[in-house]
C-alpha cells in the first residue's frame, strides 16, 4: 500500500540510485505529508540511508528527481537539516562540543562570515534542549555514543530548519538518550516541523512514528503507521529477498551496463 498525499513537503519521483552501476534503489515514488514524524524502515542493506542521502543530493542519482517544499533542494537548503550517521565523522577531530553545535549556524551565515553572538546563544540553547549544556567545552573525542548523537541533534536544532532528515539517530544510543531524542522529535512535530528518521527497530516504530515508509530496495509501503505496520506488509519487506532483482543488479555492475538508456 503506497499512499500519496496532496501538497507534499517531500516528493520523490521515480528515483533510482546505483552504487558502482548496481542499483540499490529501484524507481521510488514517494510523497510525505507536512508535520509528520516519519519512520523509514527496512532490513539491513535495504537502501534506507541511501534514499536519505539521495534526497539530500549527496549521491549521484540514476534517474528521477526530488522536490522539497515543491522546489529543487538547492533552492531550499536553508530550510532543511540533515543529521548524518554518527560513525560518518572522525570524533577525534580537534573540536569541542560547542564548536560542532555552532556549525549549525554556518548554513545561514554563508561563506566568510564568522558566527556572531546571537549564533552562539542559539547554539547554547540547542545544547540545552538536548541536555548537554554542561558538556559545551568538552572535547568531542571524550563523548559516549549517546552524547555524540545528542551533539549532532543539537547542531541540527541550531539550524532552525523546517524539515529534518535523520540517519539512524537511535543506533547504538542508551535508553536515556533514546527517550530524550523521541521527546524532542515530538516537540518538533508539535511546532509543525516534518521529521524523517531512518530507523531499524520494528518494536519501537509503532510507538514513535505517525507515518511509516517500508523500504527494501524498492518502496514496499508508505502511509499512516496503523495501516502500514501489518503482518502482510512487514513480510513483504523483511521476508524473502528478491533474488532476481539482486541478480539483475549484479549483472548491471559486472557488464558495466547503464541502468537507464542514454537520453
Amino acid at each position, binding site marked *: 500500500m503506497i499512499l500519496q498525499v496532496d501538497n507534499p513537503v517531500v516528493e520523490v519521483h521515480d528515483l533510482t540510485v546505483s552504487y558502482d552501476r548496481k542499483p540499490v534503489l529501484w524507481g521510488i515514488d514517494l510523497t510525505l505529508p507536512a508535520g509528520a514524524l516519519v519512520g523509514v524502515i527496512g532490513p539491513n542493506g535495504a537502501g534506507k540511508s541511501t534514499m536519505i542521502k539521495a534526497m*539530500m543530493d*549527496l549521491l549521484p542519482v540514476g534517474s528521477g528527481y526530488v522536490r522539497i517544499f515543491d522546489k529543487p533542494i538547492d533552492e531550499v537548503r536553508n530550510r532543511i537539516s540533515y543529521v548524518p550517521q554518527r560513525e560518518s*565523522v572522525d570524533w577525534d577531530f*580537534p573540536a569541542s562540543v560547542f564548536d560542532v553545535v555552532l556549525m549549525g549556524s554556518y*548554513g545561514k551565515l554563508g561563506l566568510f562570515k564568522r558566527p556572531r553572538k546571537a549564533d552562539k546563544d542559539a547554539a547554547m540553547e540547542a545544547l540545552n534542549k538536548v541536555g548537554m549544556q554542561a558538556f559545551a567545552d568538552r572535547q568531542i573525542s571524550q563523548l559516549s555514543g549517546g552524547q555524540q548523537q545528542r551533539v549532532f541533534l543539537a547542531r541540527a536544532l541550531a539550524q532552525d530548519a523546517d524539515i529534518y532528515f535523520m540517519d539512524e539517530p537511535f543506533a547504538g544510543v542508551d535508553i536515556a538518550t533514546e527517550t530524550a531524542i523521541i521527546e524532542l522529535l515530538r516537540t518538533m512535530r508539535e511546532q509543525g516541523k516534518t521529521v524523517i528518521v531512518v530507523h531499524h527497530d520494528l518494536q519501537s516504530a509503532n510507538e514513535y512514528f505517525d507515518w511509516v515508509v517500508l523500504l527494501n530496495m524498492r518502496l514496499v509501503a508508505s502511509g499512516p503507521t496503523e495501516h502500514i505496520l501489518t503482518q502482510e506488509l512487514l513480510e513483504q519487506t523483511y521476508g524473502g529477498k528478491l533474488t532476481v532483482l539482486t541478480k539483475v543488479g549484479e549483472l548491471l555492475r559486472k557488464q558495466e551496463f547503464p541502468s537507464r538508456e542514454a537520453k
Partner: protein
Amino acid sequence: MNDFVEFFSFSDTNIRYVTLGSVLLASSSAVVGCFTLLRKRALVGDAVAHAVLPGVCLAFILSGTKNPFILLLGAFVTGWLSLVAIDFITARSRIKEDTAIGLVLSVFFGVGILLLTAIQHSGNAAQSGLDKFLFGKAASLVGEDLIAFAIVAVLLLVTTIIFYKELTLLCFDQAYAKTIGFPVRLLELLLTTLTVFAVVVGIQAVGVVLMAAMLITPAAAARFWTDKLSLMLVLAALIGAFSGVAGAFVSYTAPAMPTGPWIVLIVSMIAILSFAFAPKKGWVSRLLRQRRNKTQILEENLLKLMYQLGEQKPNYDAPRQLHELLERRAIPQKEAKAGLKRLQNQGYVEKLPSGWKLSSQGQRRGERVVRLHRLWELYLTQYLHLASDHVHEDAETIEHIITPELEQKLIEELDFPVMDPHSARIP
C-alpha cells in the same frame, strides 16, 4: 656563542633574507598541512611534492630562464595534474587511493628526474642550480626569489584564515557541509590548490624529497599538544617557523651543512619529543598513568587483605605480620613491603612493634574495596547471569576503578544488598 649573537642580531642582510624566507615557507606549509592532515590526505602532499619536479624542468626547458614565477607556474601545473590523476584513478578504477598515490608519485618523479638529467647534459649554462629543487636551497634564498615565495606564503596564510570556518567543516563533516549549501567541490578545489601552493613554495626550502615532512610533521606534532583547532594551527606554524630559523642558523654556523635537511631533522625531533612528552597523549604520561594504576591496585589490595583478615575474627585493629598477608595472596615480598611503607606514609596503616595495623581511614578504604568487589560480583551474577564461580577474577580489577557515583548507582540497582553470591556479607 659569537655566532649566535651575530646571527640573531640579524645585522647581515643575507641572514635576514634567509631567516625570513625559511620562517614564512615553513610556517605557511605547516598551517595548510594541518587541514591536509585532518582531511586524512597526508600522503597526497608527498605525491604533489614529487610531481612538482617535472613541472619545474619543463618550465625551464620551455622558457630557458630560471625566473621564479615561471618555475612556480610549471611546478603548480604538474603538482595539480598529479592530484587530478590520483582522483581520476581512484574514481574510475578498482585501484585504491594509497596505490594510486604510489603510482602517480613514482611516474611523475621518474619523468622529472629524466628531464632534469637531460637538462644537465644539454650543456646549457643557465641550468646550474636547478638540481637545488631536489633538496632545497633555503640558504641561498635571495632578492627576487624570496619576494616571490614570500608573497605566496603570505597569501596562503591569509586564505587559510579567511576560509577557516569553511575548511574546518569540510574536514570534519563534508556531507553536512554540502547539505547546508556550502560549495563543497569548490572548497575541495581550494584546499587542493592551497596544498599544491604550500608544496611549491615549501620545496624552495627543503626540496622535493623532504617536502612531505614540512607539510605533515608540524601538524602531527601540534596535534599532540592541543584539542583546539585554532591553537593547533598556531602551534604548527610556530613549530614550522622555529625549525626554519634553527635550520638557517645551523647552515650559517656550518656553511657545509644543507639547510633543508636540517630543517626537516629539527621538525622531526620536535615531533618525536611531542610524541614522548605531550601531556595526556604523550608516551611518558601514559606510562606514568599505567604506573600510577599499578601502585593504586597494589595498595588497595594490601588494604583489602588486612580488612579481610580483620573480618575473620572480627577484629580490625589487630596488628598483622607481613607473612599473614602474603599467605592469602601471592604478592612479591619486596613490593608488598614497599606498598605498606607508602600506605604508612599516607596514613592508612600504622607500624607497631608487633606488626602492621589499619588506621581508621585505612579500615574505611579497605572496607570500600571489599564492598565494591562483592557488589560487582553480585551485579555480574544478577544482571549478566554469570555463574558465581566465574565472577571473582573480573571483580578483582573492577573493584579499583568504580567511582563513588557508580557505587551509589550499583547499590541502588541491586536494591541495597546484604550478601554477595558467595554468601559473604557486603560491608
